[in-house]
């Protein structure tokens, strides 16, 4: 009934969408070695167990720069 009270403000939606879009833009532009890094990690892990998927995400703000790596095993 009061569903319009719960409606997310469009500014908030814009912020969420921008954060994700810019994060991936930055990852693509200043991490050109991403694909190579993926291959190397797969090589290392494959010594112990098979890998079915790997995903590397980069996040940064003005103070820190970080990557998170998710490896899905077979």
């Amino acid at each position: 009934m009061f569903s319009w009270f719960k409606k997310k403000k469009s500014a908030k939606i814009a912020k969420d969408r921008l954060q994700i879009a810019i994060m991936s833009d930055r990852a693509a532009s200043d991490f050109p070695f991403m694909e190579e890094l993926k291959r190397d990690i797969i090589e290392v892990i494959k010594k112990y167990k098979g890998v079915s998927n790997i995903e590397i995400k980069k996040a940064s703000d003005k103070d820190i720069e970080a990557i998170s790596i998710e490896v899905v095993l077979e």
Partner: protein
Amino acid sequence: MSKVIAVISGKGGVGKTTTTANIGLGIAMQMKQCVVVDFDIGQRNLDMILGLENRVVYDMIQVMDGEATLEQALIRSKANRNLYFLPASQTKDKSVLDSEKISKMLMELRKKFEYVILDAPAGIESGFEHTIEFADAAIIVVNPEVSSIRDSDRAIGILDSKSQKAKIGHEVEKMLIINRIDPEMVQKGEMLEADDILEILGVELFGMVPEDKGVIDASNQGQPIILNKKSDAGKAYRRIAKRICGIKVPVERPKVKRKGLVGKLKGIFS
């Protein structure tokens, strides 16, 4: 001691040239010798905004190629005698820009002026890269709108990797100006807030300029809005210019205008 500042945006149409014109005039109003340079080769527009289009004889490219002297090409503003303007070429295209020649010309401008303001072309192609190449600082103009903010982040990325200052390990000073803010929409949650934009871009806030219909009226006449003492956008540009000149003025947030009886009457009679 002079400072070269590139005005950049990523996306076009956010008010970059308007900002350049107003800031240049604002710095001149602070009694500083200032030159604004149109780096948008092939799409000259700063001359129109400044109301100097009829006075263009020589352009920046002719100066770089030695076909004209700097003194011949520089145009002195009618609105303020401390302000000079160096036009872009309208006939050539961006490919004529050459790093060595740009460096030499900027060196000459540095000797004459305290502030050298470069109006960058939209986009992040070679023309843009040449504008930021020798800049000490950059003014980044964004609108509170997703495509403008995303594109500005890419422009900032190039600034941080391709400018000479960045290449030798120094950080290029960045000044963010949020242009065309509609305070009413911000209040309703329909427009991004300044704090959110800063968080997303990771740069510091330098100025906020409200949406102001007077800007178009001003550009129609070639009289930048900073000359209009009553205009809110004009006031915002004055504060920004002072801040560039090192005067400490707080960043003022555009406020929602309460329309009282007087305001309504003004609305009828304006």
